[in-house]
């Protein structure tokens, strides 16, 4: 499909059309506390596209912080189990950050690996993700170092790039193409070849801006991690870490969950799954009381290992999109890009040798 353009005015109509047709629309919105969150909108004017990075990523729209898996009721001699619905109404995310969209696609692998997570994929199939190319946020961005970028189309169905008077639009997936066809009246063909050039210039600027923050050789990093479980680096890596897990809750790719049964009255209850994080001590406590991860250093090592060694070993790519939220959210000043830089130096993986690998 050829690239299209869409104006701000058409976007207003577009959102109105979607909402009128009963589609849930989510976009970055400035919350009352002054921060930006992905939230439901009913009019395009409510969206704060291009504002700062939302506090949390998109993952909660596919894996909510808490969700019921089923409920049960005990009768006389039997138990009735009521499953949850795994079909979801149509949903459009408008103005997703490319780092957040990429994360969702990366998580598809673990969610559909040995067991197909119906809740995850039910929401995935109901959702169309329209991303907006990012100009880069600040010095904690490192998406280019993780093999993605501020204009990465991974996980997006449509990618929009800001240009004068609106957006340059490309369909990434068949779903995105169908979406453009359905709403063909809102989009125009690219009239001026200068628009394409301007869009590419915007993206190139963003890429080089983010690349200044950090460059890595991911294979070298992974190979060092694979053989350095007992490296002395880990002995003091997490002194300032509180083990609070704020990093995991804002992370677009951290996806661990806990499963709990909660009673609703005496003979009924609900099984739920809730976000969990390997950064807390209780995550690995055994029933005996023994904890194989003895301290915070071990827990932080797990976070780095899982993202840059274990996940790529199993699924072929790192479990990080370089959004930098963990560094921004950390009350103790832990900084993942800084840690990666340190490891890269140890591994001889620093510098722009990516292309050669």
């Amino acid at each position: 499909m050829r690239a299209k353009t869409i104006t701000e005015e058409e976007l207003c109509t577009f959102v109105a059309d979607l909402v009128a047709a009963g589609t849930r629309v989510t976009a970055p919105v400035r919350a009352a506390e002054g921060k930006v969150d992905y939230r439901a909108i009913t009019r395009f004017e409510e969206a704060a596209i291009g504002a700062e990075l939302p506090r949390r990523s998109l993952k909660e729209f596919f894996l909510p912080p808490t969700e019921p898996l089923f409920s049960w009721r005990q009768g006389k001699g039997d138990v009735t189990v009521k499953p949850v619905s795994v079909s979801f109404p149509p949903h459009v995310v408008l103005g997703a950050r490319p780092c957040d969209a990429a994360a969702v696609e990366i998580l598809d692998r673990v969610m559909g690996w040995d067991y197909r997570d119906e809740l995850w994929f039910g929401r995935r199939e109901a959702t169309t993700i329209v991303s907006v190319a990012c100009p880069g946020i600040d010095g904690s961005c490192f998406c280019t170092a993780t093999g993605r970028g501020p204009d990465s189309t991974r996980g997006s169905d449509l990618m929009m790039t800001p240009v004068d008077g609106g957006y340059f639009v490309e369909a990434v997936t068949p779903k995105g193409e169908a979406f453009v066809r359905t709403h063909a009246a809102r989009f125009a063909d690219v009239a001026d070849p200068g628009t394409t050039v301007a869009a590419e210039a915007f993206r190139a600027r963003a890429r080089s801006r983010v690349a200044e923050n950090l460059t890595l050789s991911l294979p070298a990093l992974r190979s060092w991690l694979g053989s350095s479980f007992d490296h002395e680096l880990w002995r003091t890596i997490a002194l300032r870490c509180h083990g609070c897990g704020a990093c995991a809750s804002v992370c677009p790719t951290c996806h661990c969950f806990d499963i709990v049964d909660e009673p609703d009255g005496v003979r009924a209850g609900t099984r739920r799954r809730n976000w969990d994080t390997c950064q807390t001590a209780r995550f690995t406590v055994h029933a005996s009381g023994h904890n194989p991860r003895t301290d915070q250093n071990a827990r932080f090592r797990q976070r780095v290992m899982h993202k840059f060694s274990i996940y790529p070993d199993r699924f072929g790519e790192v479990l990080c999109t370089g959004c930098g939220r963990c560094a921004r959210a950390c009350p103790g000043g832990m900084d993942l890009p800084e840690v990666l830089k340190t490891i890269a130096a140890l591994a001889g993986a620093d510098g722009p040798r990516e292309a050669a690998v």
Partner: protein
Amino acid sequence: MKELQELARTLLSSGTVGVVIGWEEGPRGARPAFITDAADSSRLIFDHRCTHNLATYLSPRRPHMARLGKAAIVVKGCDARAVAGLLRETQVKREDVVIIGVRCGGVAADPAGAKPLTAETVAERCPGCTAREPHLADHVVGEAQPEPPGAPTRDARIAELDAMSAPKRWAFWQAEFARCIRCNACREVCPMCFCERCVGDKTEPQWLESSPHPRGNFAWHVTRALHQAGRCVDCGECQRACPADIPLGLLNRKIAGIVADRFDYRATDDPTVPAPIGAFSMSDRQEFIL
């Protein structure tokens, strides 16, 4: 700064301590630093971005800290109250910690960036602070600092909430708690939350539902507030750490008001003053009891 760095160097090179816990320049502003080599003492800084309460790192729950040896800790006057709390509740022995007090002129709410300290950037606990001079200290460094900028704001907000009807107050807090995802960051950064096993983590029986739904969230925030009564030192770390920006400082301030009013107790850096919950007086007010 020089004075602080020199002191750290002396403490480390003489073997008095194994680690000096202070602040350094990080990729995103000031952050906690752990100096174990005297030669690194020059990394230590203290300025208005040093908002973190480092007393959290003295918690006995952190075995990796204990391995660094005896600690010297840099504290603002307000942070010293947390050290006093740990001493009062026998979590730390006085002889096991060297306390370096720094004189403070208020700190910023956000340790990142280089914004000057103004009424807009100052932490909400700082205006009107009466704990800027550290008393619980082995060494005090730095010159006397000016008053923090700005005026206290929380008491007015509390009065506003108190004046609302109960259902309105309920709605206010429910909207705040709705954002809670039960990551427990508020607990983990709190210097006074040192329980080996928090009641919030207990499963047999499970007193607090761990799900971040409104019922679990309400139970957690009531419990956190109650367990902080007469113990909270109002360092604001819980609110700063909260990835959902829930105004826990407001709740903490309310609790401080309750214990001040009822038990004449205020957070103090004197570890010999007993905590109000756990003690009692025959003449405690009981107007709420039939």
